[in-house]
């Protein structure tokens, strides 16, 4: 979603945001109401990265995340997640990240409408915007949110059908989303970025995503899944309403994920997350052919006395030269390695410290040190 400065938000959006906050702040029903807040405060310093704003070392406000969920009737539920954050120039912005209203027909058949975190892989629908529940300081670089330089369509506005099918000895989770496609447009901080469409669609073809994950209840925390998405992604040299199209791809993303979580019910305190994505970008603008790219990460953590959690992650993105999608996004091949440690003070407070080594294609390798205090309240 394009972040808007509060002062510059259209009055209708401001009214809508205020109405949501007031509604969820005052309404009460027999089903109860949950309001939670998530925040993180960071310090980071980079060595070897030319022009980095972290070169001098900097304290950084992370995201202030307000999350509400409520059952309106015994079958209708609403969930909303709004984030206040600072951009690279320090201006405060507000984004409505998730807004989902749904009807629960059964545990195995639910329909929701609204804005979702796309059902690609595991991370994107597990950790959302609050940092307290993810072991590491940040998301894998290629899985970053669109306005932070990510290459996956991690938000989508549309209709979702989902459910859990309990079939001994497995629990099968499925989700299918059809919604507005994304587009690429220039960005003042990161050259260009993907943009999820909240109120329009750049073309008549709806983007479709699906995820199937199988959990093994006899081994709590073990899950294996596959996901895929398809969409037409145009790129513009300005706002899509009043600018020229400069590229377009028909994109298929196919992925697999394997996770083993320390779910709180397992005797072994260990966590493994891994996801792999294959991109297939067919150039539908200049018809130069079909390009393939891939990205993956593997992350492991060990829980020592449940509180001290050393962790490590390896991630890599492989991009073929000439791929119009990655070219317009200004993304190239990279490898990232990180090690860190997390101290969970309690369930609502965690301090993390980590070292990252980022190795983009060619020169420009750099090292980044970062500390984060993540909170829930």
């Amino acid at each position, binding site marked *: 979603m394009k972040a808007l400065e509060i002062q510059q938000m259209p009055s209708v959006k401001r009214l809508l945001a205020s109405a949501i906050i007031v509604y969820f702040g005052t309404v009460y029903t027999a089903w109860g109401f949950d309001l939670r807040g998530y925040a993180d405060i960071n310090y980071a310093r980079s060595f070897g990265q030319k022009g980095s704003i972290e070169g001098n070392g900097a304290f950084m406000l992370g995201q202030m995340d307000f999350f509400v969920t409520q059952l309106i009737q*015994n079958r209708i539920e609403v*969930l909303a997640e709004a984030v206040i954050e600072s951009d690279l120039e320090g201006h405060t912005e507000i984004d409505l990240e998730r807004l989902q209203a*749904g009807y*629960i027909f059964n*545990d195995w058949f639910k329909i929701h409408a609204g804005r979702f975190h796309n059902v690609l892989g595991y991370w994107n629908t597990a950790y959302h915007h609050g940092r307290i529940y993810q072991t590491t300081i940040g998301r894998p670089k290629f899985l970053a949110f669109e306005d932070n330089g990510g290459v996956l369509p991690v938000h989508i506005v549309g209709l979702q059908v989902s459910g859990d099918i309990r079939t001994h000895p497995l629990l099968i989770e499925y989700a299918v989303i059809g919604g507005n496609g994304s587009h690429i447009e220039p960005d003042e901080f990161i050259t260009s970025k993907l943009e999820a469409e909240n109120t329009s669609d750049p073309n008549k073809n709806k983007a479709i995503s699906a995820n199937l994950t199988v959990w093994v209840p006899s081994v709590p925390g073990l899950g294996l899944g596959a996901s895929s998405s398809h969409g037409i992604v145009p790129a513009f040299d300005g706002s899509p309403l009043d600018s020229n199209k400069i590229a377009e791809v028909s994109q298929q993303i196919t992925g697999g994920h394997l996770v083993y979580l320390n779910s*709180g*019910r397992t005797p072994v305190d260990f966590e493994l997350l891994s996801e792999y994505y294959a991109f297939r970008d067919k150039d539908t603008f200049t018809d130069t052919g079909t390009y393939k790219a891939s990205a993956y990460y593997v992350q492991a953590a060990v829980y020592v006395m449940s509180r001290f959690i050393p962790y490590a992650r390896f991630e890599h993105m492989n991009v073929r030269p000439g791929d119009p999608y990655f070219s317009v996004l200004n993304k190239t091949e990279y490898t990232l390695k990180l090690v860190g440690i997390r101290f969970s003070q309690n369930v609502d407070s965690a301090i993390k410290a980590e070292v990252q080594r980022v190795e983009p294609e060619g020169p420009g390798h750099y090292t980044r040190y970062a500390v984060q205090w993540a909170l829930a309240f």
Partner: protein
Amino acid sequence: MGAGVLMRMPNQIRVAQALMIAVILLFGATSWSEVRQMAIVARSDFPNNKISKEELKAIYLGEIQILHGVRILPIDQPHRQPIREAFLSQILKMTRDQYLEYWNKRLYQKGGLTPLLEENPRKVIEAVQEKEGALGYVWAEELQKDNKIKVLLTIDLKE
């Protein structure tokens, strides 16, 4: 028996004595822990007369929301109630912190509804009588003859 005498005994006798003491301690410890019966109760119009222990776990972990066509409203109790600790440790096999963290994460990931908290077993019974789909846990001995509720499951717990 003094330690000096024990030291002078043949090894086999000392091993046998140690084993006897261990057996006595083991049986003694077992008899000291009181077994109480927990009852899982629902309103009398609940569409089924029993649930399994696995279903009970899944309900309190939010994995089952609809059962026999009814939206389930699990009712929980504060941790200061001894039955809550017994329920978490012996049914869900979780500590209080693990349970809290589990629900915090689940709510954030999937939305939905956390178990409703009632102060004590008496309030749990009242809530079960009032709310369609409500389901709670109480000590069986606290139940009185009541046409408005029914017992879906009983479980022996060590206290």
